[in-house]
């Protein structure tokens, strides 16, 4: 029964006998030893995949070239926040020129590009180089893989938006703006960052999981995020010029960006980016929240379904 049967000493045998013996199925013990230490298990694998994916989205642990774009974009979203604070401090303003949630919305093009670069790197490359079977041959389940990747993307995007918000908050406190107002605004801003990250990461992760090609994933994510936004904004503009003001709020449901804009202006005390700074009515607000939750759940379910199939 034991696999480590030692081979017969062949050097002494004559030529004909040696070939006959060599033909038999013998497993040679060449000294490899099995692993007998502790096995860290499923939750450890999940955490490791999460932290590695999160680092990867900022280019940490990858080549110097792949650090350039994420860090440049990160600087590009943080520096205007610092400038805003500096202007508020120098002009001795009573409040910041731009609200916290509003600032995140202003940075949307940069966030979209960051997400479009990060999501395919985290997800499509595993499909392209066929590393997913290696993950799934471990104690890790498919749902663990999806959860780890989705959480990593959401966390990356949350960091990307929350750091400028915190810069603005700390700066506002140093500039001796009203503590209560600023704290309330910053908390609302952070909630908004979380909502923004959860929704956009779900959309981007699903699109990235559909294609093994990185370039295609990048283009598809950018298109999916920006085209509806520009389209809905143009339609809202048309609705406003043709005095069809009731339609503006309902049109906003049509793209992730305007959906979040509506939510922040209704529930998180921000200024609306809609034409005429229109805020939502009560019924519209409820529908917005339901649609937001439904979209997140829907894209997560689609993502899980994508990985249910064998032989991706």
């Amino acid at each position, binding site marked *: 029964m034991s696999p480590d049967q030692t081979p017969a000493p062949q050097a002494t045998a004559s030529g004909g006998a040696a070939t006959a013996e060599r033909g038999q199925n013998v497993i040679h013990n060449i000294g490899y030893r099995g692993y007998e230490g502790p096995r860290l298990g499923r939750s450890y694998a999940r955490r490791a995949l999460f932290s590695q994916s999160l680092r990867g989205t900022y280019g940490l642990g990858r080549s110097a070239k792949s650090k350039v774009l994420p860090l440049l974009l990160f600087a590009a979203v943080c520096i205007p926040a610092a400038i805003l604070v500096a202007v508020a401090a120098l002009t001795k303003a009573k409040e910041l020129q731009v609200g916290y949630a509003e600032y995140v919305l202003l940075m949307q093009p940069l966030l979209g590009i960051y997400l479009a670069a990060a999501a395919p790197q985290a997800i499509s490359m595993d499909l392209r180089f066929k590393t997913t079977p290696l993950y799934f041959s471990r104690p890790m389940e498919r749902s663990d893989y999806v959860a780890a990747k989705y959480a990593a993307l959401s966390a990356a995007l949350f960091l990307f938006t929350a750091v400028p918000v915190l810069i603005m908050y700390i700066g506002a406190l140093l500039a001796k703006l009203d503590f209560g107002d600023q704290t309330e605004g910053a908390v609302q801003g952070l909630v908004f960052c979380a909502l923004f990250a959860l929704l956009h990461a779900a959309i981007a992760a699903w699109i990235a999981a559909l294609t093994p090609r990185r*370039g295609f994933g*990048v283009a598809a994510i950018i298109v999916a995020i920006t*085209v509806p936004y520009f389209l809905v904004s143009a339609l809202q503009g048309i609705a406003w010029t043709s005095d069809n003001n009731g339609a503006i709020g309902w049109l906003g449901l049509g793209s992730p960006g305007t959906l979040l804009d509506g939510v922040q202006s209704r529930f998180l005390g921000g200024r609306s980016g809609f034409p005429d700074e229109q805020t939502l009515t009560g019924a519209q607000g409820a529908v917005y929240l339901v649609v937001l939750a439904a979209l997140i759940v829907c894209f997560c379910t689609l993502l899980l379904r994508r990985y249910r199939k064998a032989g991706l």
Partner: protein
Amino acid sequence: MYNPTVARLTWRALLGRRRALILCVLPALLLVVAAAVRAMNGADDAVTSQLLGGFALATLVPLIGVIAGTGAIGPEIDDGSVVYLLSKPVGRTSIIVTKLLVAAGTTAVFAAVPVLVAGFVLNGNSQQIAVAYAVAATVASLAYSALFLLLGTVSRHAVVIGLVYALIWEALIGSLVPGAKTLSVQQWALALAEKVAGSGADISSSVAVPTAVVLLAVVTGGGTLFAGQKLRTLTLAGEE
């Protein structure tokens, strides 16, 4: 300068599989929206300008330009199969020119034609608005194709860089810094549209027509030449 075999291969790479889908979705979206707006609002010149200028020329044309321009050469360089093409007795410049024509043709078919149709749907080409925007879209698609084809030969991250240019430079910086508008393909194309359209049409560009024509020619010609030079000294890099 035009090589039919290279053209056929490029067509198949561009319109094969799911790439064609994404290229069809965007114009279809424009046409559906145009029909819906016409049904709700009736014909209105200001609305037509708003939709064609704000959505079609600002978003649709650059995006399709990025997809077609980088898609014409990027994937081939990415997976290394371009060496089989380069080892054939076909001039590098003629490869680039052929790919440029195919990319520009694709962009024109998927961007300029839908713009023309959408213009007719929206207001029946009153004050030549539909034709003006279609001309602008055609010219812009040629310039974008040359620009993004060049990017495809220069960098492996051509899609991302192209999108940064299309979204950040043209949309964001172009609207904040007036000087940046002079260096925007969209504004050059709008200058031609302004010339074509009637005086009552609400189309305005921040660039004069002669400047626009010269800059368009420089970008298209220069981009093609430089891309040909770049293809001559191409080195294939490994994965990251």
